[in-house]
């Protein structure tokens, strides 16, 4: 590039019309539009594949997936549209290289600039969205803020063992369980650790995921908002039966939860104040 002045465009016959009026630009815009519309029609797929949501933070996650998919459709469409058009329009087939070369223009600074600015803006949007959502996604940025007037969080100690999860409820007289029982609409605080190797505690439908690391305590929390039975899996390869290191998280009403806790032999009765509030 040293010895060549930067030729913007140098088509011989006539000065070109401004970029947006050229026929190829219009055709590409059309292809782009079609691809974008097709893409936008498919944005529900990730969220649909992710299945039901059992917590507000899973709602946020699914919203994020949908938003990103919606944002990426036009971006992908730009590149594919130009590629498809170029290949279809300017294709040359033959065994020998074409006699005449294509026009010798080296760059187009406005386009490069516009392209960089646009990708910068998109990046910023994605980043700001992520920062806003971090507050609600506790594993990444510390614990989520409690909603006003909520009950104090219930602590569950989660221990990953090679290929079995177990859960201890320290406030309920250290009752223990292999299935994670959670009361509906109550903040649950997870203290996660591991007895052996690194596991990753994952309640799929609640969007809860945090590593269980031996010798460390990692924390996360969740407010389950749907009754039902959900999947707890391990998301970090932990040896032989990693695939079978799964159990269930059952979200039940506070009454059912209390009954279950009594049945398990909870020594400390659940304080009545909390019960009233939880029952509401």
């Amino acid at each position, binding site marked *: *590039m*040293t*010895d*060549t002045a930067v030729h913007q465009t140098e088509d011989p016959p006539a000065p070109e019309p401004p970029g947006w009026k050229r026929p190829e630009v219009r055709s590409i815009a059309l292809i782009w539009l079609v691809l974008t519309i097709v893409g936008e029609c498919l944005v529900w*797929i*990730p969220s649909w*594949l*992710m299945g039901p949501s059992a917590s507000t933070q899973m709602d946020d*996650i699914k919203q*994020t*997936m949908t938003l990103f998919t919606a944002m990426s459709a036009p971006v*992908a469409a730009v590149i*594919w549209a*130009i*590629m498809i058009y170029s290949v279809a329009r*300017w*294709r*040359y087939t033959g065994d020998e*290289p*074409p006699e*005449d*070369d294509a026009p010798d223009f*080296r*760059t187009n600074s406005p*386009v*490069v600039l516009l392209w*960089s600015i646009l*990708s910068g803006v998109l990046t910023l949007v*994605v*980043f700001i*969205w*992520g920062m806003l*959502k*971090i507050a609600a*996604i506790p*594993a*990444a*940025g510390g614990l989520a803020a409690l909603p006003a007037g909520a009950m104090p969080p219930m602590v569950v100690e989660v221990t990953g063992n090679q290929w079995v999860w177990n859960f201890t409820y320290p406030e309920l007289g250290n009752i223990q369980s292999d299935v994670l029982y959670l009361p509906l609409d109550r903040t649950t605080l997870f203290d*996660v650790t591991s007895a052996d*190797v*690194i596991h990753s505690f994952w309640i*799929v*439908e609640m969007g809860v*995921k*945090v*590593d269980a*690391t*031996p*010798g460390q305590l990692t*924390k996360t929390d969740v407010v389950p908002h749907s009754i039902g039975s959900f999947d707890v899996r*391990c*998301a*970090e*390869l*932990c*040896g*032989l*039966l*990693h*695939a079978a290191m799964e159990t269930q998280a059952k979200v039940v009403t506070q009454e059912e939860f209390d009954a279950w806790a009594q049945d398990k032999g909870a020594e400390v009765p659940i304080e009545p104040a909390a019960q009233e509030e939880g029952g509401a």
Partner: protein
Amino acid sequence: MRRLNIITAIVFGLIGTIAAHYLATIIFVMPVLEGDAEAPSGLVWLLENRIAFTTMFGWVVGFMIGIGAFSGPVRWVLGKDLTDEEALFLAGKDQGIGRYFRFTTDHKVVGIQYLVITMVLLGVGGTLAMLIRTNLMTPDSAFLGPTTYNTLVGMHGIIMIVATIIMITGPFGNFILPIMIGARDMAFPRLNALSFWLIASVVPVLLSVPFIGGMPTGWTAYNPLADQAPIGMDGFAFTIIVFAISSAVAGANITTTAVKMRTRGMTWTRTPIFVFGVVASVGLAIPAFPTFMAAQVLSGLDRGVGTTFYDASGGGSGWLYANLFWLMGHPEVYVILIPALAALLELTPVFTRRPLFSFKAAVVAISGIVGLSILVWAHHMYISGWAPKLGGPFMLTTEIISIPTGLLFLVFIGTMWRGRIWTRLPMMAVYAMLWNFVIGGITGVYLSDIPADEAMHGSMFVTAHFHYTLMGAALTGTMGALVYWFPKMTGRMFDERLGKWGFWIAQVGFNVTFLGMFMVGFAGQPRRVFNYSEVFATGNFISTMGAYTIGIGMLIFMYVVISSWSRGAIASSNPWKAKTLEWQVPTPVPLENFDVLPIITSDPYGYGRPSPDLAATDQAPKEGASL
């Protein structure tokens, strides 16, 4: 020195193996036996690993002695430097096919050696992929069983990582790059041979892993899980250590060559973009891989010496391993990706008959990616609980990478814009890459954002994402680069009629495979599971069918490589009418490439100029030169 070749290397290697094994047994075990009647089991475990490490060390040292890698340093210490005649012998003069089996210093020989070992590794890795997908075809398959399955997942990972790291910088960085910049050889020819033979010596160690207990940990070999793996884990750690040394040596060599040996007149703005890509890759590997090596050294010490770096009860932490690993782990994906993209950037102008669109943007993009890639490692640890407060900053650095990556896309489509797009197989690789890498790149943005990563981390979504980048972009680019440079490297044309079929079948299969994997990833299937819940059955079945399609496509492609190499049409010296220097020298390329070094007066992308007098060399291109 003249008698040493691969056979002596293997013989010496075996002697070294046996000798080291016996010595280790005597040195480490005898004192224990003399002491107590029964050694505690923990000590027995340490001794087993210690012996395993020593034995592998014996193999590599023996092999390297046998191939002649140490004769240079020993002669240097003794002050007996090589004579010209000996140097020419080492460069492989008049040795025919035998020079490929020796410690040959000629960069073209090393390039071909790298090409072959890359293809062998890709073949083995691909075979393992087929077995993995076969096991995952049905939810409750008992085909491989958990131990073997986990080992094969790790082996597939590390073999493919090694193969893809060397697949561009090894064959093309060695064969093509020096000619491209107008050099007679690499800066350090003997280091060049050393880097190749180190890999060659350690590949048998890596491939033996499944047979000495396996490494059921995945290629990341996270500690403390790796601590309880059988001695196959020692084979992995040892391989990484040797491979890191080889990378450092190759990186220093290629970088020095590109920086210091460009011919007269080849300023940085006249240097082909491929050179930037290769230098970015190997230059990035130089600081990155030693941390991986350190992670494995500490792992080996934990297993064999009894330190407690990763042992939580002894004050260690798995987070230490994760940090050291990902300090290398993220730059490493760009080590793989950038040179492949740069190879495609190099061939796009040739097949569009247009100058590269915005050369500066391409250079800025490559440097930007390199610079940022060392600041993003912790995005692999968003949910590890390590420093959750750093999530935001790491999210920012990670997402900023999409700006230079986007610029690279612009360079590609800008170069195609209004080109005379000559649709040959190398150019088709560009189309395929643009399709795949858009998907790989966008899914990368999902994973870079913590809210999405929270759900997708550790799931099949991640697997699909990085296969789209490493296979969809990098391996596809390498296939294009291979077809492009095939005439220069082998002297024969690549049979595109059949090659196209192989290429596109593999591409279709590839998209089917990872579409299925995205589906089960969204639905919540964890990575690296040998069995899974019924709900993921459909997506996995689709993936397996896609994988078999890739296998068929790749086999067709492989057949075309072999048949074209042995019986293809003889290639002229510049079949693509390209303007870079490597196409201006005769085919086959003479021993020292250039008799008189060329002088460069402009960059090699001057298509569409009235007088195509670019890349002027003192040496007239010898059209139609043949064997």
